[in-house]
């Protein structure tokens, strides 16, 4: 049972009906990390999709830049309760990458430089629902926010938008990723407040 601290209101934040349940609006962009920030030189960067059969599809940084990109504006929601509305990103839709990928898998495990992983159903990556984003607010994505490129899946809690994305492993069975294996929800829908396992 928490004691309310008289006169405490914390950093300026507000309520807004575009916020999912339990979220606060923030105007800054908090940086949360689980380890040291990886530094990935662009000449060695690559993004790979590996199917459940072991077939690999790989893109270098230059190849990524040549794909059709979009500028999108989305709301992002972190499981630690802050939400940021109207953020703009430049990125390539995962649909573009999956055009030539042949798969019968239902699940994906996204993995990052530095070792982070997160799992989600494949269908949540497709049909315009996710991007490989490399610019934020018109500038190259900073390393502390996941640069050179991160996965962006705005309809789920932000821990699913793996920073420093390196690849996606397609799987027949779902396998919990970094946070999912230590209490967080396998799916993570902010509108149903799916923060922890069992929510």
């Amino acid at each position: 049972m928490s004691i309310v601290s008289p006169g405490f209101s914390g950093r300026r934040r507000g309520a807004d009906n575009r916020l999912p349940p339990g979220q606060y609006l923030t105007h800054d962009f908090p940086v949360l990390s689980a380890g040291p920030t990886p530094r990935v030189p662009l000449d060695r960067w690559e993004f790979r999709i590996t199917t459940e059969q072991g077939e690999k599809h790989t893109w270098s940084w230059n190849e990524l830049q040549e794909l059709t990109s979009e500028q999108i504006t989305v709301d992002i929601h972190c499981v630690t309760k802050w939400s940021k509305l109207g953020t703009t990103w430049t990125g390539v839709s995962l649909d573009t990458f999956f055009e030539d990928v042949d798969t019968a898998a239902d699940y994906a495990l996204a993995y990052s430089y530095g070792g982070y992983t997160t799992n989600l159903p494949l269908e949540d990556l497709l049909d315009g629902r996710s991007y490989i984003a490399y610019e934020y607010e018109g500038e190259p994505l900073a390393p502390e926010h996941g640069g050179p490129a991160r996965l962006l899946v705005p309809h789920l809690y932000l821990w699913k938008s793996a920073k420093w994305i390196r690849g996606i492993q397609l799987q027949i069975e779902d396998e919990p990723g970094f946070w999912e294996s230590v209490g967080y929800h396998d799916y993570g829908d902010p509108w149903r407040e799916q923060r922890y396992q069992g929510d």
Partner: protein
Amino acid sequence: MLDVPDWPGHDAGQHVDVRLTAPDGYTAQRSYSIAGPADGDRIELTVQHVDDGEVSDYLTTVYAIGDPVEVRGPVGGWFVWRPEHTDPVFLVAGGSGIVPLMAMIRARAAADSKTPFRLLYSARSPSEIIFADELRRRARDDRGLDVTYLYTRSAPEDWPGRPHRISVADLNSAGWPADLRPACFVCGPTGFVETAADILVALGHEPRRVKTERFG
């Protein structure tokens, strides 16, 4: 000063976690070192105002005597000194890292301990020295306590040398020789702590004898 009902007592070097809750349920939490020995149920924290620090801002400007606040602790069993430890002690403080080390100095005095203590306190300038008067008094009156100051930005006129960041020479001359196997406690911002700890190990102190607490 906080009155904590049924406070179980604490060791010098321990801290508490302070949690603030806004009426809408929003919470913020920070850790603060306990600055001195317990006085029954009363404990002392030293909080420095940090720009943009929502907890320190509340505690130093809004919080009024008598207001309730949630505290968890005492916490920490590694970075502690107890009067029954009689090896010589070397305390290395960077900025607000002085707080848990001051608790150790005060505990030593309260226990009337003869354990030799040396303190090296690094701050940006003389005006940023916390507990300045008390340290001056203790350096004069507490037998077996030596205090050396190090300034990184601006120094008083009578201070030998130029302002500089902590170096091998500072730790070597202000501290105990490694073969005396002193207990070393280093506290302050992460960068300061890592630099100082690396130097102490390079000077021959066993890594296990160099205890660190990072304030970030």
